[in-house]
């Protein structure tokens, strides 16, 4: 009888441990960040007219902030939409000419970032290029927000 009790006790303990392990594994999966994003649209700054957009093409991690351009600088929507950029976020990165060469010629961001209206697009690289590390941070923010 005693043997049976001991065996039962051991089984319960083992099952308990597996249960804990299973639950903790499951929790791990929930906070995992999806890989290879095609860009991030972060809507926290919608009050300023539009989202924070992180482009992923042709290079990953390029931020455009409505919060800064509309909220802090006070630029009206018409200064970019729909002449330079379409309303749909991340639409421009589908264009084959969405690159730095085009910006130097005054297209896209280069319309203002020409060294006169705003800093030239061939300077201060890491101001807009927040990189893969910056992109991951936005992915994390997005994941946390969706969880709520």
């Amino acid at each position, binding site marked *: 009888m005693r043997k049976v009790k001991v065996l039962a006790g051991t089984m319960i303990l083992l099952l308990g441990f597996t249960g804990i392990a299973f639950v903790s594994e499951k929790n791990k999966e929930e906070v995992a960040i999806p890989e290879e994003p095609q860009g991030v649209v972060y809507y926290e700054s919608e009050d300023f007219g539009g989202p924070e957009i992180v482009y992923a093409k042709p*290079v990953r991690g390029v931020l455009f902030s409505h919060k800064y351009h509309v909220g802090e600088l006070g630029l009206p929507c018409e200064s970019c939409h729909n002449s330079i950029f379409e309303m749909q976020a991340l639409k421009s990165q589908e264009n084959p000419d969405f690159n730095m060469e085009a910006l130097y010629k005054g297209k896209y961001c280069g319309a203002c970032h020409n060294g006169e209206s705003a800093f030239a697009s061939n300077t201060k690289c*890491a101001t807009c*290029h927040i990189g893969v590390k910056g992109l991951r941070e936005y992915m994390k923010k997005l994941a946390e927000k969706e969880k709520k």
Partner: protein
Amino acid sequence: MFRGIKEWLLSLKNEGVEQVPDETKREFLKIGLIITGVFAGGSLFSVVSKVAEGLASPEELHKGYPYKPHYSMVFKLDRCIDCELCMEACRKTNHVPDYGWRTMILRRHDETALDQKTLFMPILCNHCNNPPCVRACPTKATYKDKKTGIVRMAYYKCLGCKTCMVACPYNARYFNEEKHAVDKCDFCWESRLSKGMTITACAEACPAGVRIFGDLSDPGSEVYQLVHQLAKPVWVLKPETGARPNVFYTIS
């Protein structure tokens, strides 16, 4: 007789350290550092013995180029945008697993900075002229290539003791489980340069022209022209270790 000595020792009074001059204290500490340094694979030893050498000007760091070709890499630091295409290319070319890296990008971020708030800094093995890892390796599994100056690995000799990982001032080594040996950047020697290619995978993949790779002993090469000028600052990482790196940093 011994009793006399014992009594004499017991009669001595503690004089305290207040009266000892600073120089003497410093000398005493140095002895300690040197002794510890010898046992720590020599990397600490250089803390006290190589300061003067490390602070020398770039010309002093590289009086001559003992290798031909003398492979070197120069980073135009302000152009790095952390797109990590270099890391991807490196992983693909050299079969680097997820848990390790041969090259990576560090980030400095300062919200209080006046203008640009972020700076990215790519790093890789510095292929030092005086490599602490080579000195530390007990089996000579890591060695300085006599022709090219590349710090390479003979994987079959590596015990996996990881002493070189501790000795490297740049943290440029990782333990590869599959090879059961320490792995590191070899300027793509095995995968590309030995097969006739002239440039590393990371330098080829970089879209911003951050990584300039070439022969530092050739006055016509871009790396030579970037290093041998005074108009823009050129620096190396941790010169105080006296490792004399062959990876330089500058701005565009």
